[in-house]
């Protein structure tokens, strides 16, 4: 059976589609393994393992967040907050604020974290920006 006849064969197409889906899915799992691990940590009911969280933190800090794919960084900040890594939370939130400066929720959270860490001057700047936007 030549290649053209093969690609017209319904059974071949069905099996190929399944394999193709599988290949794309595997590739997706490989490319987004950090984000997927983070998602599991975020959704998990048990407290996350701090070592795993820090490993993910170091890996993700090396990348630049995409304005449309910030959900992972946001989750990372939430997970870091759950394991009481406040300095790291501030670093992540700073990164997010640089990418999406108009996002008030992230800026407010950054301002509160800075305030809680007694970094009042930096916190004041962010609170001022939020108040000015109103």
């Amino acid at each position, binding site marked *: 059976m*030549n*290649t*053209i006849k093969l*690609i*017209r064969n319904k059974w071949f197409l069905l099996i190929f589609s399944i394999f*193709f*889906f599988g290949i*794309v*899915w595997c590739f*997706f799992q490989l490319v*987004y393994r950090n*984000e*997927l691990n983070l*998602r599991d940590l975020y959704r998990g009911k048990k407290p996350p393992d701090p070592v795993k969280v820090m490993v993910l933190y170091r890996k993700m800090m090396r990348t630049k967040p*995409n*304005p*449309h*794919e*910030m*959900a*992972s960084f946001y989750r990372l900040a939430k997970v870091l907050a759950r394991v009481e890594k406040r300095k790291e939370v501030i670093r992540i939130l700073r990164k997010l604020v640089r990418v999406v400066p108009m996002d008030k929720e992230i800026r407010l959270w950054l301002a509160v974290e800075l305030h809680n860490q007694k970094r009042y001057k930096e916190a004041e700047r962010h609170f001022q920006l939020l108040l000015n936007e109103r």
Partner: protein
Amino acid sequence: MGVYLYYLVYRFRYTINPDALVLSISFLYADVHGFFSISLFAFQLWNPIERKPPAPPADASVDIYIPTYNEDVSIIRKTVFGCMNMRYPHKTYILDDGNRPELAKTAAEWGCGYIARKERSHAKAGNLNHALQRTNGEFLVIFDTDCVPQPDFLERTLGYFQDNKVAFVQTPHNYYNVDSFQFRVNVEKGRLWSEQNLFYRLIMPGRDYWNSAFFAGTAAVFRKKALQDIGGFATESITEDLHTTIRIYSHGWKGVYHNEILSNELAAKDLKNYNVQTLRWAEGNMSMLYKGNPLFTKGLTISQRICFTSTVFGWLFGFPKLIYLLLPIIGVFIGLNPIKSFDFPFIWRCSLFLIVLILGFEFITRGYGKIIFCECYTTLNFFNVIKAAFRSFFGLKSIFKVTKKSMGESISIQDIAPQLIIGLLSFAGVIWGGLKLYYDIHSNFKGMTAAIFWNMANGLLVLSVIKKVTRPYYKRKEFRFIGALPVQFSLEDGTESITGLGVTKDLNEYGISLVAFTPLPVGKDISLTLHLGQRFISCKGTVVHAIQADRFYGKVFVCSIRFDALDDEGTDLLCMYCFNTVLPQFRYRFVVRRYVFLSLLSKLYRRGQFRKHVRRKTTLPVVIRNNVKAPITLVTNDVSSSGISVFSYVPLDLGVIIDLEVITPFGKLTAKGATKQVKEIVSWNSYLIGIQFVEIPDSSKDILIRLVSKRQ
């Protein structure tokens, strides 16, 4: 155009995404390119002209040129005999660039002239110029080797030359091998779409209004003086036709486009040869930018410059098409959006733009353009066109490659590799985008959904294209014409003798598909008498294959019959009958619905909601007896409870009472009828006659009811 312009302004002002500048600018370029394309397209279609040909001059001397290189003699034979059958006095010449002694001998046997040359410089243009110096006719007609003219070709075109400024008359290219992948055919619904019809049946008549119709390579008549004025056919480009036309117009001559099908030719049968042809056309047309740019050629009017620039510009569609195919893929994988903010203001404007564009296109193309089919063909051609553009831009030497018109070739994966890659990436994009949304990785739900949808649309488009071009084709050497002729058959099956009257389903000079109401044994010899209008062909054949059809409660049998070598006279007679009668009757079945509204209306009408008596399209043999004339055997077009319509080679007098004998799977239906309508399909050759039943015997009423019932 207003909506498009408004959309473009909006896009430029509010939707450029600085985070994805390259993608945004590319997307905008593609939209702007589309705007210019549509504008030029609309300009060309401003006022398509339908001309009525004046009477031909009494004593014009006409030479027919049939340039050939390596085409099969069987293909050339049909063209030669078609030319020699033309009614107006002329001389036919085969211009053989292959310098084949056997063709020279055959041309002498056929009774036509033969001109060969020793070298092959400048391909077809050089061949034509060589012949120009060796013939004396005042007019010359060019037919490609597969282009068979109708008998009235010269009578319908020469009259235009009464205007001394007319340099050439071009007629539409009509491709008859509807089994080629370039066609979308539905015989039952009367729908036929071809990639080329939009150009030849609408764009060219539109360009005629601006005196910008151009010589398209074949099926055209030239005034020799005009060609001599410009120094012969242009040889600088591989599309000598366009280049020659521009020169003609720049010298102040006029061109005419006669929008009537007067010849028939073969479309490229397979993708390989189709790609060769497309690449040649694209390269040749784009090379006009450098060799005789219409914008800078002296002597052309402004409208001619616009029209010819549109011709060249039209071949750049590959670039925006590639952008539209790649953009959603890149957007999904990289996560960048070419639109700054995919919000409701953009969505409604984009939706409005697309709706207006699609409806506007359907309206402006007057039934000849189907946007989904056009998109399929741009998807098929985009890679070749981009290749041609690069070859043109970098000045690579173009080679004139002849499109093979003999038996189709098998295609390979390499022929569809670009489409396969785009298809796989598009479907991968759908999966990737879906996974991103499922795992909450992408926050812009609307944007990602739009990208997934776009990828899906592209993927399905590519799938449709691949499915169409890879379908198995008939391995017959010659195309079988789809048409019905009455055929009397008889064969001996042991002690039994089977005789009857059937109709053909398709035919050519090598065999027929016969529809009979008795089963015929496979492998047996069969005697046939084919009714070709007023003439008959008696021959012998072999039943190669027989199947029982589902129609009429399984009482119908379709048998493939191979002729046992028809003699030359029979072959030529059958060929000419196929081209001059069967083909026009076949074309008659397909009507172009000019507007969407009319198309919907006709759908309702065909469903029979407004008809008193539903008509069933049925081809059955019918013998018509008239007290005055000899009985004639014809074929029905449709049957209803009130009458029938038949294809006839002679017109019948209106109102005359005739005896009908219709051979049906349920027996003979006899009736008396009166002719109510006579429509000419081909002048002096073929008519559609409407007959109303006047009297039906009781024995035939039952047969008629079974014939017209819905469940067949």
